[in-house]
């Protein structure tokens, strides 16, 4: 069939831009309505006040992958035609860790900050200024960064392409990782909130940080072993 519409030439570039504003509107609306236009609400997750950020993220990921499974199997969308960025292994790991530090500092990520700016959060406006400065630093430094920026390019890698399977396998893997992670965090949050002490909070933060690093190492090893020549 015809989807993805823009890539398959069903709609024009201008229409795609108009759609982007509309789609962004929905995204921004839902983010604000769920309470994530607030650095305080976002960072509640990091200090185990609640588990809302992870619930929201995992539900969104599972919903999207579920629609892919349904629409893909009905032949209503050509999954190989969608675009996701190439996987640049070491730049991703570097960028992800640095992003995490920045998020712990600021309490925002780029998408939530835009919704927060719109709702009048002055700290989000300062964050936005910082973003513009950070982007300028990257642009000015690009001649020196270029080599690392394009290094370890693995192409577009999906779970099903890595294992030579179909998208059902990808969905099951997504369900397993997402479901386990959300359940695990649910447990940690309730564990910390029973007789909360600072040392308990810190040790759980380190535990989650280390487990996340282990996940990263496992995926890196998987990619290195299963993908030919990187």
């Amino acid at each position: 069939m015809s989807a993805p519409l823009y890539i398959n030439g069903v709609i024009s570039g201008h229409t795609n831009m108009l759609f982007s504003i509309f789609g962004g509107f929905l995204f921004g609306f839902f983010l604000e309505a769920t309470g994530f236009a607030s650095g305080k609400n976002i960072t509640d997750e990091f200090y185990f006040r609640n588990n809302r950020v992870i619930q929201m993220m995992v539900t969104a990921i599972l919903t999207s992958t579920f629609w892919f499974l349904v629409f893909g199997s009905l032949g209503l969308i050509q999954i190989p035609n969608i675009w996701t960025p190439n996987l640049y292994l070491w730049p991703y790991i570097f960028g992800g860790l640095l992003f995490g530090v920045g998020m712990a500092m600021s309490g925002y990520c780029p998408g939530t900050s835009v919704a927060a700016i719109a709702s009048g959060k002055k700290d989000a406006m300062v964050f936005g200024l910082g973003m513009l400065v950070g982007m300028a630093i990257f642009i000015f430094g690009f001649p020196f960064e270029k080599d690392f920026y394009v290094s370890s390019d693995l192409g577009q890698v999906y779970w099903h392409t890595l294992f030579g399977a179909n998208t059902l396998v990808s969905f099951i893997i997504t369900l397993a990782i997402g479901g386990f992670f959300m359940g695990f965090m649910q447990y940690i949050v309730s564990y910390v909130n029973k007789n909360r002490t600072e040392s308990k909070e810190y040790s759980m933060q380190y535990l989650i940080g280390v487990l996340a690093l282990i996940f990263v190492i496992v995926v890196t090893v998987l990619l290195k072993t299963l993908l030919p020549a990187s």
Partner: protein
Amino acid sequence: MQQRGYWGTLIGGFLVGTTLFIFYYVSGAGFGASGGFSQLSAFIIALFSKSYIASNAYTAKDLGEHGITHILYNRIFFIDIGIFIGGFVSALIGGRLRFSVDKGQTTPTSYRYALAFFGGILIAYATRYARGCTSGQGLAGAGAYSIGGWLFLFCVFAGVYLTARLFRRQWL
């Protein structure tokens, strides 16, 4: 108290995930947010020196035949405009539209601003290497079976949870 009036995360997550899939269905690519800041930053630099943007290998491709405004004719920048309007309308409906600073009661505002500013710099710089943020790389990637999305997300969690302790004071 804090959460009163907010939608539940399951319905919110379902709607965001469905929005994400609609993006893939229509555009063939997911939503994102950080790219808009990159384009806006390049646009501001171009206001001062168009020749620099034209000579920089990272930004040269953004200059089209219509001059520097072409830098902002960018899918992610348009999504950011949408997020802004959507966030505004939702805050208006929810009665949350007011100038305020998110911080702990005893936290000095300047301290909160400093962390927000430097965190913004780190995040912007990081998104360039990761080819996106928690929306464009994390959710959009993991929501389309991409391994890079998950890899990025767990790197973010590692970074967040291993350093959150250092920045805890701003919320007390």
